């Protein structure tokens, strides 16, 4: 067990090193002078020169990479070109809406998707199963921002039940905070729900065909006990895996969702940075989100042992 954990930690370090290297070297792999592109079309030679110095583009690649990694080790993600503020500070200011949105979505999605998947598997072949699967295919196909606008136009503009856009801090009232997160979470969560539902159903169908499930049914256990106690517990590993992998969907989707709902989070920070070509911010956010994704999947991998005692490593 300890050996497995150590090996898994080591591979996480390797993957993060590759991520850092890729994110850093994008500046050099792209054709042309990145400083000229960051400076924009109306930039003077002096502007471009300034950005060159600012990003240290004139030093050898190894020197630049070493400097960047050293700063990173000290928790320094660089400085925004436009606002001159440290990227970590900018991210810190914007982190609450993003964490609120993704956590809300995560909780609601899992709470919805697991019962849907279990139900569809238990009633396989019925209209209920077909309805769940149809929803799943649709969920994969409607892009998050299209769904977001449909939701706003229906529930905010037309019915006037929920706020159109914006965000309220949690400490200014939990109810207002929640009200502003309902539509964004539904928009962001739909594709995630579709994904988890699909895998839960498939995994449950596999398990339900096993002998021990038939035994449990034969000895007269309540159908609910068989479904949850015997089947779902054993179907958990692929479901956990997809919950971890799906976090990438949440992260990508959050950027768009924050834009549509005008949530002042990290996604909004990223989109503003694109318009200003403020590369250090984009670099920092990419690195941060990738790290979150890698860590979530590390936790998922390590938690398998909890769900499946057969896995002892």
């Amino acid at each position: 067990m300890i050996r497995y954990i150590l090996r898994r930690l080591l591979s996480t370090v390797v993957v993060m090193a590759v991520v850092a290297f890729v994110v850093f070297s994008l500046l050099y792999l792209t054709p042309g002078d990145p400083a000229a592109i960051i400076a924009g079309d109306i930039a003077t030679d002096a502007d471009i020169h300034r950005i060159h110095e600012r990003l240290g583009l004139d030093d050898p690649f190894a020197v630049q990479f070493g400097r960047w990694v050293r700063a990173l080790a000290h928790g320094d993600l660089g400085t925004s070109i436009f606002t001159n503020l440290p990227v970590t500070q900018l991210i810190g200011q914007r982190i609450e809406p993003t964490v609120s949105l993704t956590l809300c979505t995560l909780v609601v999605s899992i709470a919805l998707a697991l019962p849907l998947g279990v139900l569809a598997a238990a009633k396989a072949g019925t209209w209920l199963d077909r309805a769940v699967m149809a929803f799943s295919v649709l969920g994969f196909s409607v892009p998050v921002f299209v769904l977001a606008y449909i939701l706003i136009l229906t529930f905010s503009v037309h019915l006037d039940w929920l706020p159109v856009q914006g965000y309220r801090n949690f400490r200014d009232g939990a109810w207002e905070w929640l009200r502003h997160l309902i539509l964004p979470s539904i928009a962001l969560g739909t594709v995630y729900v579709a994904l988890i539902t699909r895998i839960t159903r498939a995994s449950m169908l596999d398990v339900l065909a096993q002998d021990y499930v038939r035994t449990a049914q034969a000895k007269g256990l309540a159908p609910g006990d068989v479904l949850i106690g015997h089947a779902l517990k054993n179907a958990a590993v692929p479901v956990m895996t997809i919950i971890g992998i799906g976090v990438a969907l949440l992260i990508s989707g959050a950027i768009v969702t924050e834009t549509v709902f005008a949530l002042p989070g990290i996604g909004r920070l990223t989109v503003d940075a694109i318009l200003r070509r403020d590369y250090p911010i984009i670099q920092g956010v990419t690195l941060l989100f990738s790290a979150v994704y890698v860590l979530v999947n590390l936790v998922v991998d390590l938690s398998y042992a909890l769900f499946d005692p057969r896995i002892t490593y």
Partner: protein
Amino acid sequence: MATALPAPPMTAGKSVSPTWARFRDAFRRHPMALVGGAILVAMVLVAILAPWLATIDPQAVSPAKRLRPPSAAYWFGTDMLGRDVYSRVVYGARVSLIVGLAVAVVSTLLGVAIGLVTGYIRWLDAIVMRVMDGLMSIPSVLLAIALMALTRASIGNVIAAITLAEVPRVVRLVRSLVLTLREQTYVEAAIAAGTTLPRILARHILPNIVAPLLVQGTYVCGSAMITEAILSFIGAGTPPNIPSWGNIMAEGRSLFQIAGYLILFPGICLSLTVLAVNLLGDGMRDALDPRLARRM
């Protein structure tokens, strides 16, 4: 996997390969895949025939007719510059389909090349797969955003940026298929008979991975179309002067409360097209793996 079965030798000229026969049967069993195919064919026709279908020049500005709601003259209404949204949406089909198809084809070709090599050369495998793990750990939209922030906006760069994010997934698939196939008796027999590596790859491995790649390709195509729209929507995609569905929606962003149709029409077209591609992919996947078909 069912795909690991070697194809029986062809006899008469009229016999169809079992893969294609399975696709044909699957379409019969999955009417939704046919619906998907029909929608996709319709969209492709719209894209090709855009100059004839569009009522007026999609770029023609007419300030006097700004923000007209949908009507008989302007089917999808007009935008804030008085441009005809219907004509713009019709031309937008071109961008989505070109990006989707190009990303699917390029990332499949690249993925096959890398996957075949790493599946066979062990020392390279460890290095390449770590790089692929790293690339896959960067959420694809962010990777594409980072690349687009460093290059000039163009459709070519959009395709390149999305391809880079999609390639690792294809590589993983190809590699896992190759690792299964190389253990097959007929491949071992070929090796024992002294067949050269390029010939084994071309004759025994490649034909057996075509079908799963086709399925994967459709999913890549659908996801690429969504990513292109997302990138354009947040201002990191197709240049704003080209009418793409993402761009039309981006322009409608600040006006959606008074002119929701600016967002709805391109949004519906995009969703329909992605849905069609996904239905087609599901149908093909079921055809390939009947065991999976029961479950998914």
